[in-house]
């Protein structure tokens, strides 16, 4: 059990280290880049929404 917790702890630490390492985006955040990233978020939001909707109507019949 202790080994399991230790492995989980190591994994969380690895994820945190990655998040810290890449915390500051290196690309120059021009207005064009910002617009592209916002558009991408909206696109994915809609697409994931459609996926969830499909899942719900499939499950509920």
């Amino acid at each position, binding site marked *: 059990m202790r080994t399991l917790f230790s492995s989980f702890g190591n994994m969380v630490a690895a994820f945190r280290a990655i998040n810290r390492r*890449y915390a500051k985006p290196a690309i*120059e955040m021009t207005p064009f880049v910002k617009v592209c990233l916002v558009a*991408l978020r909206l696109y*994915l939001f809609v*697409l*994931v929404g459609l996926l969830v909707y499909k899942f719900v109507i499939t499950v509920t019949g």
Partner: protein
Amino acid sequence: MVNDVELTAKPSMGVLPTLFYQFRKAAKVLRMFAVIAGPGIIVMVADNDAGGITTYTVTGAKYGNHLLWFLILLGPVAYYVQEMTVRLGAVTKRGHAEAIFHAFGPFWGWFSLVDLVITDWLTMITEFIGMTAAMSIFGVPAWLTVIGCWIAMGAMILSGRYWTWEKVALVFCVGNLVYIPAAFLVQPDVHDILRNSLVPNLPPGGFTNELFFLLMANIGTTIAPWMLFFQQSSVVDKGLQEKDIRFGKVDTAIGSFLTVLVAMFLVIVSAKLLLGQPIESAAEAATRIMPTNRWVGTLIAIGLFDAGFLGAICISLASSWAFGEVFGWAHSLNAKIKEAPWFYAYYFFTLVLAGTVVLIPGAPLVLITLFVQVIATTLLPAALVFLILLLNDKKTMGKYVNTPWQNFANVGIVLVIIVLSTLYGVSTLFPKLLG
């Protein structure tokens, strides 16, 4: 990686010495190209994976040679997109996953990595479906095919040398060309092929939803998310430098030519032997052809197995490289297994997991095949947009930043791919949406 050509003929030399120098110069350039070539050819030929082979077979059976011109158009599309990964890899020395983390931060990094892992794993299942279906035509049981593939895939990386892996992969690329002799065996109508290759036209019946769906499927098989990650990581692992970019571009151009060539010859075979028949997979096509044309049926089955094998090893590597880059593991094919245990463990883990799913009785394989397209739709636009943004970042790319013409071509291509792949993904989810 390789010294530039320094051989130049002196102006005072005669014709023969000048010719000799030109010959030596050309020979040296060819030798250098042979050293650098690989990632572009492999990724492009592997693009004709089991799913791609099925798409081309269905295209030929449904619309004959009428869409050959469309396949030719997809060659430059694939080239322009993949060429960007060569420049990005050679300049930044980072794989695509690491480049996204570095440039856009953890949110987009994790999104891309998780999405890539899911997409790759599902796609690998489709590769194993293709391989087992192909070998079942020869009476080989699925379990034997899967175990045999695991052993062969493991043996490929045991040497601990990128070069060995690449050369074996190139042999499988040659195997993908079996559709060319198959097309000669069926003696197709050359005039019809030339007319449909050179003159854009619509099949009888005009532009229908079914045609639109198939066109989108062809685009979907031409540009897949894993290809971007694979080629960029491959360029980095091979150690290509900025001065090697021009050879990397030629490598990619040859690859895109080969991928279109294979697709066209398969469509020609399918159009000649299966036109009008309701074909749903390449394995079904091979089975139907076998009784009347044993050689062609055998070649289609061999090609399908080869495509699945090549696709599986490349896709598995794309994920392993991505994980290694982000988690900081040793992640090179030049490392021995004990030097990069996590990298190889992940490579085997994904292959074993994908192969095992195919062996589970009653596994929803058709659903998985459809789901691949939908999940890929969530990753492809993001990966392509990141690629364009990175290639326009002067700080990252320096003099290798996109030129206005490259931006015009690449942005146009990326926008079209995003719109069509989205429509494809959505129409897979809601088949009645487009009528």
